[in-house]
């Protein structure tokens, strides 16, 4: 895997953790009291955090799937060329 892709994956993982932080922040920082109606800031943080988590997870899964597909096709091509040489 190219080094850019590796660092890109780390960045996507950071996005995932930022989403988790946003999801929990209203309750950790305590600007949202448990049991009370959600204020606008809480709703915004939960929706944005949820969207970030979804985007990051989807990106990681799809990136991994396509990277595996590329690796499989490269291995297949290598084995066919080796057979052709022998």
């Amino acid at each position, binding site marked *: 895997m*190219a080094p*850019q*892709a590796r*660092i*890109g*994956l780390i*960045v*996507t993982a*950071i*996005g995932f953790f*930022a989403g988790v*932080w*946003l999801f929990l*922040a*209203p309750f950790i*920082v*305590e*600007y949202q009291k448990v049991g009370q109606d959600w*204020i*606008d*800031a*809480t709703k*915004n*943080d939960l929706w*944005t955090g949820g*969207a*970030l988590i979804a*985007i*990051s997870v*989807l*990106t990681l899964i*799809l*990136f991994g799937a*396509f*990277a595996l597909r*590329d690796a499989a096709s490269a291995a297949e091509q290598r084995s066919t060329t080796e057979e052709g040489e022998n």
Partner: protein
Amino acid sequence: MTKYVIGATGALLGALAGVWLMLAPFALAYQGSGADWADPTYVDFWTGLPLLVVSLVGSILYISGLVEELRRRGIVRRPYAAPAGQPQAQGPPQANASNQDNNMEQVLLPLVTAMLKDMQERDRERDGARQQSTDDVQQPQHTGEEGSVRR
């Protein structure tokens, strides 16, 4: 190749989320303009700004990976790259010029050699034909001499 497009799209969406987080307190009006920042504003702004920066870096990396992949597959050419099979010219302009002359000589040498060989063959053929024609001309004289009655 698709993986880089997916990664770049994800990173760009993350950057957009970062921009939204920075603007949301003011857009949704839970932060009054001019008032001291409340806790939700601090959280959103200071989460949004690093997220924006990190996502932009990520999208740049994914796009550079995509460009590298495209170059590797030969879809995109490297800018100012020498064509395959030719040594890349380096050094001062004079050295470049001499290198170009050498390359030109290398290209023209087989052509000139083939032309010379062709010309030599033609000359040989022409000489052969001329010699044959002179023999033909000389032969009847001999025969005439042989056939004639000497007195």
